[in-house]
């Protein structure tokens, strides 16, 4: 063998060694967190990590999770998907094959959750998205549910029609304008869902205006909206855009009632709205901090004492997601991924901080109530609970 | 006056050529002819429009009016590369070599106009492509040998001495196998002996490759050694033409160079 050939062989040998890498296994329950720490929605990822860490610390302090008679601690593996679809796929694959997690929490943003769910489904690993509302996260193209993918929140198909109904029957306002972020997936579908539901409920849509992510000047669109004299301005937009839209709308003399949906629910929105333009605006949400349930109170208290802020809906949903996973691990009594996913599908009475979860009849989207909140005195105030039919 | 040494039909006819830049008329009603194998010198004070004339002939800029006939075919509207394909090659006053590429590559790029393979053949690297590439590399090396810069074949062209760069530029133009060579101050920046060597080389080239030449030069000795006839340009107009001897005694030429006071 010549020197040159030898070197090539060495090179290949080392590269294969490098590729095979090292695999390890220990006695903890590994749960992966595939979330948006960087990119367009860092606040979402931060809340998600906080709540999950809180949950894991609590469980580990209690001695861990009972798996088939043995107490095992939980190990949380946090990975950043940068709010990008391709990164989310790579992260999902890494969590499943490198870190060998038993279940994945996240991604939260639908554009990441949809592709990541395909990976979980193909590789047979439970994935629960706390916050993704896109129907394709849990369903395949033919409409059937993916075996391994669930979500902890309601979808916009549930939320938005109830919100439209609320606007018509509670607020008695029938002329709506919509200003939405067209380049973001969730606001875009919420806007179109609202248009459909509001028309069905007997209302009238007088203006549909759009902007793109990162825009800060909405005056042209708002001037156009003002010319159509709406009673309601529905703003499906992420929390950092909403205060700006509200301020510019009020400054232009728009007096319409503001209406929002669950993307508003981060407490940041109140901090950004220092001039209270958003006071008395209504929005639908997953979660209210004003609940009387001891479970919720305990959660809020421990969250507040650990992080100094009140939890938002993403934190609450992540907390519930972790609870759901642990619940099905206990029920399954093993760390077998398929067994855990099967147990998950049979959960009918899990009570979390955002309400009671039911996954009946093979439905992987939970059956939950929609809560309506309003903003008063720098606080989210509970208004009413809407029951889906 | 008898313009052409031999009674042959001219290969290049320029008639009533004009070029305006904004309001500036750089070339005004210029007409001349070039016979086969003739070497025509162009002289004139700075700003007389000599380089502009070359740019017009080589298609880098388009004339405002007038005609350029090359073998009785109008070329004034053709692009620079089309004109090259018709057989007119040029060098530049401020050398424009591909400075980061090697000397050999400079020549090969010029030689590429003789290669006939199609894009598909290039992508698949067929036998024809390989053969032509091989030939072109050989031819380029032979040309470098003629100019005795073979030893520099793999140096970046920008690292060559000034005189070598001038020669390389001429070699590169010759690789196009032109029938007319436009040389813009080929001897600029050369010392006496280098200049004479260049004259000899150009004479040899003219004989060997049967090219006509049109050259801009300030050194009268250079013109004297090479050119059959000389045109004198001043402010864009042709003020005199003929042999160097005839021009030397032309009143308008003397005026243009030395001012009106001397008569």
């Amino acid at each position: 063998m010549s020197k040159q050939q030898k070197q090539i062989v060495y090179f290949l040998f080392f590269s294969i060694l490098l590729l095979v890498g090292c695999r390890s296994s220990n006695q903890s329950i590994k749960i992966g967190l595939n979330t948006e720490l960087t990119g367009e929605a860092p606040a979402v990822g931060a809340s998600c990590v906080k709540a999950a860490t809180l949950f894991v610390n609590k469980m580990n302090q209690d001695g861990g999770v009972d798996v088939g008679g043995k107490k095992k601690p939980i190990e949380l593996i946090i990975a950043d998907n940068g709010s990008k679809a391709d990164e989310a796929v790579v992260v999902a694959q890494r969590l499943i094959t490198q870190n060998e997690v038993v279940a994945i929490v996240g991604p939260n943003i639908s554009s990441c959750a949809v592709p990541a769910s395909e990976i979980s489904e193909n590789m047979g690993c439970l994935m629960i998205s706390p916050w993704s509302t896109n129907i394709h996260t849990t369903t395949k193209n033919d409409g059937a549910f993916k075996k391994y993918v669930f979500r902890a929140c309601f979808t916009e198909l549930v939320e938005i029609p109830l919100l439209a109904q609320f606007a018509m029957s509670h607020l008695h306002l029938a002329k709506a304008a919509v200003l939405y972020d067209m380049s973001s997936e969730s606001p875009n579908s919420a806007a179109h869902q609202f248009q459909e539901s509001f028309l069905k409920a007997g209302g009238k849509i007088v203006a549909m205006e759009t902007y793109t992510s990162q825009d800060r000047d909405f005056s042209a669109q708002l001037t156009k909206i003002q010319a159509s004299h709406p009673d309601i301005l529905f703003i499906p937009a992420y929390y950092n855009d909403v205060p700006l839209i509200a301020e510019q709308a009020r400054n232009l003399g728009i007096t319409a009632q503001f209406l929002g949906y669950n993307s508003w629910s981060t407490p940041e929105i109140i901090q950004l709205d220092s001039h209270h333009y958003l006071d008395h605006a209504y929005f639908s949400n997953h979660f209210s901090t004003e609940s009387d349930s001891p479970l919720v109170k305990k959660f809020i208290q421990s969250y507040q004492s650990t992080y100094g802020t009140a939890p938002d809906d993403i934190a609450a949903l992540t907390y519930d997601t972790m609870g759901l996973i642990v619940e099905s691990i206990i029920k399954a009594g093993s760390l077998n991924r398929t067994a855990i996913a099967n147990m998950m599908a049979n959960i009918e009475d899990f009570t979390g901080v955002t309400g009671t979860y039911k996954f009946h009849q093979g439905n992987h989207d939970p059956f939950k109530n929609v809560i309506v909140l309003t903003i008063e005195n720098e606080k989210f105030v509970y208004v009413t609970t809407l029951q889906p039919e | 006056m008898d313009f052409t040494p031999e009674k042959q039909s001219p290969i290049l006819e320029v008639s009533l050529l004009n070029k305006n830049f904004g309001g500036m008329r750089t070339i005004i009603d210029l007409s001349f002819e070039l016979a086969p194998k003739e070497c025509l010198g162009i002289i004139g004070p700075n700003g007389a429009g000599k380089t502009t004339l070359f740019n017009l002939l080589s298609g880098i800029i388009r004339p405002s009016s007038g005609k350029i006939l090359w073998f009785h075919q109008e070329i004034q509207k053709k692009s620079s590369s089309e004109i090259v394909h018709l057989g007119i090659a040029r060098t530049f006053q401020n050398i424009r070599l591909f400075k980061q590429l090697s000397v050999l590559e400079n020549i090969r790029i010029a030689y590429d106009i003789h290669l006939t393979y199609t894009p598909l053949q290039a992508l698949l690297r067929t036998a024809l492509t390989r053969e032509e590439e091989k030939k072109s590399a050989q031819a380029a090396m032979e040309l470098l040998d003629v100019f005795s810069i073979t030893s520099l074949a793999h140096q970046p062209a920008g690292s060559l001495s000034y005189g070598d760069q001038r020669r390389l530029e001429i070699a590169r133009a010759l690789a196009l196998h032109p029938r007319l060579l436009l040389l813009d101050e080929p001897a600029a920046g050369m010392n006496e002996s280098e200049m004479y060597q260049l004259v000899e080389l150009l004479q040899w080239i003219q004989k060997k490759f049967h090219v006509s030449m049109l050259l801009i030069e300030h050194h009268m000795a250079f013109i004297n050694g090479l050119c059959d006839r000389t045109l004198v340009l001043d402010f864009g107009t042709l003020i005199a033409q003929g042999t160097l001897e005839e021009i030397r005694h032309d009143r308008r030429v003397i005026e243009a160079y030395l001012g009106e006071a001397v008569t």
Partner: protein
Amino acid sequence: MDYIIQQVINAIQLGSIYGLIALGYSLVYGVLSMMNFAHGDLFMLGAFFCLLLEKIIPLPLWLALLLTMLVIGCLGALLERLAYRPIRHAPKVSAIITSLGCGLILENITLAMSPYPRHMPTLFQNSIFHFHGITISSLQIIVIGISLLLMILLDVMIRCTTLGMVIRALAWNRLMVSLLGIPANRIISFTFALGAALGAAAGLLYALTYPVVSSSMGIAIGWKAFIAAVIGGIGNMRGALLGAFILGSTEVMSITMLPSTYRDLIAYSLLLIILIFKPYGILGEPPTQKI
């Protein structure tokens, strides 16, 4: 009619902010023929610095503006010294890549320090005037006023002072200027500082108008302002302004007349059309080349 006038006001406001950023691009390009892609991030830092300043000591607007311009100006000069000067003689492309890299570094450091968008405090009492259905806020007037003032000051400085003359001379021939005994490096640093200060001022005004400050605001606005500078003819100060107003009014107009989803499509198509007919921008001149 009210509607149209209102939209015209919107266009002017948008245009004047684009203009202020575009000026910074043009200034640096004019002197170094280098696209400083980090400019958008200096703009963002301007807003952040002012935010920080107001958190520590609440200052009046003019003082905050001056301080912000000063500090970000120094930062711009520092950036030039550390990142751009070492590669001034490298191929042009590496300068572009370096500026892209610097922009990303600045943006991501800010993101790491402050992952959430922040609210910008108001620096003065904003009052809103309504006449005949048209709405103007005092903020809008101040923003447009300060932008125009800065633009005029810059124009006067470039045209009428010795320093301006040196800057213009640098744009023509850097070597010659240094041969004349003028400290070219210092002038280049100063120009960078000036460009950065303008960007920072724009950042501050922008943050006042749209009081949410986030680390990603530099990229979106920066690219748009850059396009504005190119439409007008990059390197040309007046062109930058013209481009900014054209871009601002096109955006507003396309929202007014058509479904707003097509705004970007129309704005960028306009840019392409302008560059097809005027390849070097409306007021730009093609680079002269001696053959």
